[in-house]
């Protein structure tokens, strides 16, 4: 892009090209990703669907820098993940990515608020995290739940807290792995609604799901078939 020209395209948060990831070795090796391409722009919610074991979570982990592809390239925050050291990946996760998991993974010894605040204690996040955490808790209607421990909360409350935790460092990219997979229908709708709200402005969301409702609220739905993504 030449300087001086107006940019009208949305901000591209992550771009992955020709991703290959195989599990196992030799004749038992299985390529779950076989030349997959994907991009996510700011402001969009992308749903990723496909049968169990087709590699949806693997792709999510690769995009978030939790794992490395066997082949292909991923660009996140202007940096190529395959060239980054483990320390570099950690720093990218800290500043650019938030994760939401199917099983919430809240820490049982901490209260809801402490769980939300924990990533905010990481060194490079400035001093705004506590205020942002409180604002998130308020805006998600979790003020009462935040004072309790996870064991005392419903699944929906736990998942909303885990979304607040993922957002506390204000990441551009939110990666959600089956966030409604462990919730009843009503709680699931609540969470989807929340994710829809999150995907806006300069933030994008990739949602791995089996949930048909989730696919309906998405801006784009991608299907993973035979290791490749089709729209």
């Amino acid at each position: 892009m030449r300087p001086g020209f107006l940019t009208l395209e949305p901000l591209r948060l992550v771009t992955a090209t020709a991703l290959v990831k195989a599990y196992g070795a030799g004749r038992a090796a299985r390529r779950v990703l076989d030349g997959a391409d994907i991009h996510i722009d700011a402001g969009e919610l992308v749903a990723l669907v496909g049968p169990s074991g087709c590699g949806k979570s693997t792709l999510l982990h690769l995009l978030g820098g939790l794992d490395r592809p066997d082949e292909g390239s991923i660009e996140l925050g202007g940096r190529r993940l395959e060239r980054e050291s483990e320390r570099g990946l950690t720093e990218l996760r800290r500043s650019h990515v938030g994760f939401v998991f199917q099983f919430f993974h809240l820490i049982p010894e901490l209260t809801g608020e402490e769980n939300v605040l924990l990533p905010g204690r990481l060194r490079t996040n400035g001093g705004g995290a506590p205020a942002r955490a409180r604002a998130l808790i308020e805006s998600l209607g979790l003020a009462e739940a935040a004072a309790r421990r996870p064991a005392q909360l419903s699944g929906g409350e736990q998942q909303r807290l885990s979304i607040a935790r993922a957002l506390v460092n204000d990441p551009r990219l939110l990666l959600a792995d089956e966030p409604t997979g462990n919730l009843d229908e009503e709680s699931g709708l609540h969470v989807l609604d929340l994710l829809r709200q999150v995907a806006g402005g300069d933030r994008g969301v990739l949602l791995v799901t089996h949930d048909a409702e989730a696919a309906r609220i998405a801006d784009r739905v991608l299907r993973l078939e035979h290791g490749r993504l089709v729209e």
Partner: protein
Amino acid sequence: MRLPGGPLASVRRLRARPGRSLVAALGIAAAAAMLGTALTVGYGLHTGFDRAADRADLPDVIARFDNQPVGRVESRLRALPDLQATAYRQEYTSVPIFTGRRQTGNGIVQVVGPGRRGYAIVAGRDVRGPRDTVVERGLARSWHVRVGQELGVGQGRLRVVGIAVSPDNVAFPLAKGPRVYVDRSALGPGFVAHPRTNLALIWLNDPSQLAPVLTQARAASFGVGGLTFLTRSGVRTTIDQAAGIVIALLVAFSVIALASAGVMLAASASADVQRRLQGIGVARALGFSPGSVAAQYALDSTVLALPAGMVGIAAGALVSYGSSSRLLESINELPPGAALLGPLALGLVAVIALVAAASAWPAWRAARRPVVAVLRGGDVAPAVRTSRLPAGFVGLGMRLAATRRRRMLATVAVLGVSGGVVLTMLAMAHLLDRLQHDPGLVGKRYQLTVDLPPSRARAVARIPGVAAAAPRYVTFAADSFQLGEGLKVVAYPGDHTPFEAPPLAAGRRVRSPGEAEVGTGVADALGVEPGAELALELPTGREVRFRVVGLVRAFDNDGRVIYTQPPRLLAADPSLSGPIAVKLADGANQAAVERRLRRLGAPPPQPATTATTRNAGFLGVLAALLRAVALVDGIVCLYILVQALALTARERRSTIAVLRASGAGGREVRLVLLGAALVAVLGAAPLAVAVELLVFAPAVSRLAASYVSLPLGVQIWQVAIVVLGMLVLAAAAAALAARQLGRERVVAGLRSD
């Protein structure tokens, strides 16, 4: 249903998880190293005397008497019942012995005749001709004398043909004078033709008949003056006492180390089972019996414990063998050599058995629980009240650790006991250092002695900065030990406690010239107690008598010391003199006092002497040994912490993985683990101090010796060192465990649920 496979299947299982197997093996090796150290030190010291006595063919009785013709003594001894053999020596004391660079006037020359020797040749050969000499090993070591070298003995020069060990005395320089052996022919044909003797070695057919033999020997000794008997058990007691406080301390340590190693092995094996709870659950779900599961764990542990235990025991033995051998040599005993292999092998068997049992038992218990509960394993953390702990990553680590209360208590207990052992070792090593440098430890309250006549004591006392001054008369009275060491008699005019105040164990202090306080070493040796009458023979040959009024725990002269007032001593020996002991006032300038003393015409004042033995090197070896043991124990503490952290990390994989997914790097993971380690360390530190003060120090003091009072209480700086050391260990353990975690893929942790 039984689980398939034998040892080879166990090897495959262990190789399938190399990291964990290595950590478990390291733990077993560390505990086995402690066991190896304890066995080497304990076995070596416990059996050292018997080993040396057997090798040297030490006689059952050593009789000393005035010079006699050999034939006369022999005819008397032949009449004794149950006699197996005799040998005769002529002993000369205070003989000059010298090499090119060293000399002493305290040499002991023993002229040996035909027959059994009573010493073991450990290098070279025995004496054969008039120019030959065999030297004791202590002399060879301390003066670097080698076989083939020339040695000055008396007025002549002899060739050293051999080096000998005889455990009837401690070794030079722990003993006052070095001992050499020469053949009768060295004293000329006249002596060969008409040999004389003042020392007889007696071997019996049945040593249990010793008492009647001695009774008969006394009855048959008419006309033989100065007769004393030293039995084999008497030699043993005396040498143990002469070796000071340390042998029993080290044996006590061995017992403590054994207990620590056992607890550690059990904790380690139990932790490994805890890690593999899910595997147990799966095996049970598939229908395998609890017995089969337990047997598999026992076999896996055995396969792991065999090489790890061998390495650990060998390492422990190698680390401590040198120091304990030097200790044994200084008391004329022999290191165990190949004989140690048996106990070490037994130790290895014990390690394997303990590890197998410690693995099988929790596996058996786990396998008998409902399968669902076992499958859930340790990954479900119960909600406990930990909100009072600090926030942040360190606080999170503390909460994670505090969740597992039982395990944390077990870790704190093992760590606390280990810390207590380290504190005890440091306290003992410090005590040995102080024996060399701190006069206060041996009950001396004066700082200087100055060589002036007793009549100048008042002038000295008037010097500014001097709190008190008095003549300190010292003499050595005859004793029954014949170790070249007499009973030390110390006398001050009036009250001696301002100058020397060893703790009073029984009775009271001296109040009049006819009274005496005796060290417990004297009391043990002579069987005296308060109220008894003590008769002493002074070097002048005059006898003095005192009424024993008190029993004191004195380090000085290994407790063979007597405190009294001078009039009776001076009456028996008017030439008796001594320096003036000078006690400085608090805050006095010692240099200024020394200058004023020199102005009185005194030679340079001497600092108060301290060591209970003459050999500072001996104490140094012991202190080094104790510090080495403390170091080994420190490594064990590190292992315990790493093990506890690894277990916490294993259980909380998903928590750590979520943190890492959120952008937590190595630093934050280390902080979390540091927090978990801190909970253990902060609990263990006060426990270590309490265990040392309330259990180990009193127990070791009691075990150490009856003739001294051991101030084994810990100092603040020692506690600080141990606490700081534990914190450093916590940081190191956190770094090690975090490094291990850093190698694991984040995704693997996220999938652990």
